[in-house]
């Protein structure tokens, strides 16, 4: 018996009971659609996060001093006092073949006052080349320059959130005086808006000043301790070597003996990317489990309806056997019917899933990324489900005795 013929017979059987076939497919449709939709949303989110991280700056290695400890109590990242601006200068000076620029960062939380308005926020003391390292542009005015950094000038650049809270609409802040804590600073520029990070922190709620000024005038610190530094590498290809060299240099400068641990931590964007990768990997595993369960339920639905179908068409089976259908032909006829049901269910599920993902993306303004591979795999897998769960009913049909079938009432 040829394949096209069996296919036609199976299609006929499915179309004969349209409502029943549809209800049977629903389990598969819902399962596949859910997987496709969630995968599309998840992939969209991870693509967005990757984009955001690369917007932090290319070739970036971040270094924090070790967390400060009091007894066994550890405080926040960057709270240690072990790293200084001199470390940053040394890295730039001695590893110039690997490092293009280094920006120390000193963070202070301050009250900003402008006329009768005030705002509490963070001052980031950075170096003049920070905008370059972080791919962050000044939209209005300018960033401070090297001589201002060296001279501890009281100049600052403000983020758009700070601008919105301290200035009138349309007011040009460049050239105005802003009081930070008790010190007057001249505003020389406005940073372009960067929006929130993937984890919800408003990056525009910031004021930037030279780290020298921040350390000496705002922190009133005699030491040159910094909270972190951003090291920009010449090339990402040298990442491992660069991290090794930086670590060696810092250990030497901090006079650490071999048995002592590093008193600083390094992190780079690839590590963060890897973390995101492992999170989305975990999500894929969970989704696969959900998909497997829903397809199991859908498959049992198909098996159930196929058993009914075999009983219902027992006379047809008898007749086909009487005129020469081999057990294998009967087996294939019913397996193909089940496969067709589940494959159609899978195809509809893929379509519904893509539609749902786009609808949710539209409503929630989430990015949606639909991968062809996930659609194809769902589709292929659903036909396997049909094959697997269709086998038992089909096997039972093929084992029937022709004479019992013909006599069945």
């Amino acid at each position: 018996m040829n394949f096209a013929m069996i296919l036609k017979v199976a299609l006929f059987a499915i179309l004969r009971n349209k409502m029943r076939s549809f209800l049977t497919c629903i389990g598969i449709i819902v399962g596949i659609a859910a997987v496709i939709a969630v995968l599309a949303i998840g992939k969209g989110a991870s693509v967005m996060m990757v984009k955001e991280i690369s917007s932090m700056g290319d070739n970036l290695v971040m270094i924090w001093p070790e967390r400060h400890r009091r007894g066994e109590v550890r405080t926040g990242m960057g709270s240690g006092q072990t790293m200084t601006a001199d470390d940053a200068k040394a890295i730039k000076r001695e590893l110039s073949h690997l490092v293009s620029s280094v920006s120390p960062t000193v963070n202070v939380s301050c009250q900003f006052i402008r006329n009768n308005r005030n705002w509490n926020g963070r001052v980031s003391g950075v170096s003049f080349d920070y905008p370059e390292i972080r791919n962050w542009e000044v939209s209005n005015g300018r960033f401070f320059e090297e001589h201002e950094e060296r001279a501890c000038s009281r100049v600052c650049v403000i983020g758009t959130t700070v601008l919105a809270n301290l200035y009138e609409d349309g007011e040009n802040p460049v050239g105005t005086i802003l009081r930070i804590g008790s010190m007057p600073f001249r505003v020389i520029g406005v940073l372009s808006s960067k929006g929130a990070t993937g984890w919800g922190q408003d990056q525009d709620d910031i004021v930037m000043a030279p780290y020298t000024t921040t350390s000496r005038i705002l922190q009133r610190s005699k030491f040159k301790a910094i909270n972190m530094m951003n090291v920009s590498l010449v090339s990402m290809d040298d990442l491992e070597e660069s991290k090794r060299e930086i670590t060696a240099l810092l250990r030497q400068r901090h006079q650490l003996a071999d048995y002592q641990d590093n008193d600083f931590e390094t992190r780079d964007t690839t590590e963060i990317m890897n973390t995101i990768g492992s999170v989305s990997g975990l999500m894929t595993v969970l989704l696969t489990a959900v998909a497997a369960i829903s397809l199991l339920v859908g498959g049992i639905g198909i098996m159930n309806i196929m058993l009914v179908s075999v009983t219902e068409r027992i006379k047809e089976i008898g007749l086909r056997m009487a005129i020469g259908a081999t057990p294998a032909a009967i087996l294939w006829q019913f397996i193909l019917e089940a496969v067709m049901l589940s494959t159609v269910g899978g195809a509809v599920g893929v379509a519904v899933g893509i539609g749902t993902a786009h609808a949710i993306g539209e409503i929630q303004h989430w990015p949606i990324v639909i991968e062809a591979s996930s659609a194809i795999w769902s589709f292929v897998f659903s036909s396997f489900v049909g094959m697997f769960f269709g086998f038992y009913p089909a096997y039972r049909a093929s084992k029937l005795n022709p004479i019992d079938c013909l006599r069945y009432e």
Partner: protein
Amino acid sequence: MSSLIEIKDMYKVYAQGDEPVHALDGVSVSIDYGEFVAIMGPSGSGKSTLLNILGCLDTPTSGSYLLDGIEVARRNRKELADIRNQKLGFVFQNFNLLPRISAVEQVELPDLYLGRLSRAKRRRRAVELLRRVGLGARGKHTPAELSGGQQQRVAIARALMNEPPVLFADEPTGNLDTKSSIEIMNLFTELSNEGITIVMVTHEDDIAAFAKRQLVMKDGKLIKDCRK
């Protein structure tokens, strides 16, 4: 030349409750090529069991069965299916047409399992067979659109599709009125005259009278064998 059908000492025993039931109790008979045989007897006499075994739909408990020179009593299901497909044609009391497919497609079915003919040749042969049984104009009709007599003609055309040497009919006129019954029997007579062997089960004497040989069964035994 040996017979088309040759059975020897055939037994069929059903284990029903405590008492085994002997549906066939040592039947031996041979049927030659081209014969038109009617198997008669009261219900429960074993005539349908005999026909089912002859038609390879059922297997005997013991005994030998030579069909067209081959032993078929101990064959597996696949081989029996192939024998039914190529050597036998069936006509049933209740026609056993598939619902919803056209007469031509019904007739084509046996060759779909055999795959001997091309698509076009198969269709041509099916149309030809329908004309042969007097249904030339009704090829596109489904069973629901045909009368009982017409449905039985479709079933006969289907039975002839793979050119089997023998046709088995189980009460072929049981569901038909007298006029249709006589038409079907006339068709059988014509087929018989063309050389096709026909073995038919019936309990009606006037239907059996169309056959050239009558076998009468009772309690699983053959009690009478007479030729016209």
